[in-house]
């Protein structure tokens, strides 16, 4: 279990990084950024795993809980990254209206 955490979340992060670096389409770049963010979130969630423990919801006959901190903080991180995604998507719509393309290699003029 120990190494699987690092390998799987790092693999997800690398898939997102590949998408950001290699692809030219703006929408695909945004998807890549989101996948990178989900890789980090998955790392935090899986690092809080404990065997023979339940999710941090208070019940009467439960003794062992996982770490509640990632469960509290990860939704906040996802909400913040969602707000950033709104900004990116709106900007890409405006770019499409101006240049009639989403290909980054064809959008050369960044002035005005």
């Amino acid at each position: 279990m120990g190494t699987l955490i690092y390998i799987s979340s790092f693999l997800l992060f690398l898939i997102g990084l590949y998408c950001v670096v290699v692809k030219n389409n703006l929408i695909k770049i945004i998807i890549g950024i989101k996948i990178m963010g989900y890789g980090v979130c998955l790392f935090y969630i899986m690092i809080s795993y404990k065997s023979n423990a339940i999710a941090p919801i208070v019940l009467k006959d439960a003794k062992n809980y996982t770490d509640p901190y990632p469960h509290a903080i990860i939704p906040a991180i996802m909400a913040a990254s969602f707000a950033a995604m709104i900004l990116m998507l709106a900007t890409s719509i405006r770019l499409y209206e101006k240049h009639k393309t989403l290909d980054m290699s064809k959008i050369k003029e960044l002035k005005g």
Partner: protein
Amino acid sequence: MPRVIKILTNYVIGPIITFGVYIFIFGHLLPGEGFDGGMIVASILILCIIVYGKDEMEKRISVNTAVLISVLSAIIFIIIGFVGMAGLRMEHKYFLDNFLPQGSFSHLFSGGIVPILNILVGFSVAFGFYAIFAYLSEYKTEE
């Protein structure tokens, strides 16, 4: 948009909105609360703008309606806070003080005013994000 995405969006709208509403109704029992549930609902609204176009969505939920719902739920939040300040149930008088019965432990109807506040925050965030996205993608400078 390609036809595949339109048809897939039709199937995806219902489950995702249900999931978002579940998150913010069960906000006081499970991880995630009003902000996160509202974010999930807002994501499907934004997907609808991208897939069906701004004009089609303007007929269903206009931007002004979205701003109105968002602001109204924020105002109701503050009003509930001041009702708590009146001290109907207990002697101490704080902002956002609980004035509803607390219910039984770990059930849906428990927690006093917290579920109501979660639902209000959910509506505010969902329609607020929708309005921000619509404004940002539509705004034009005077030339």
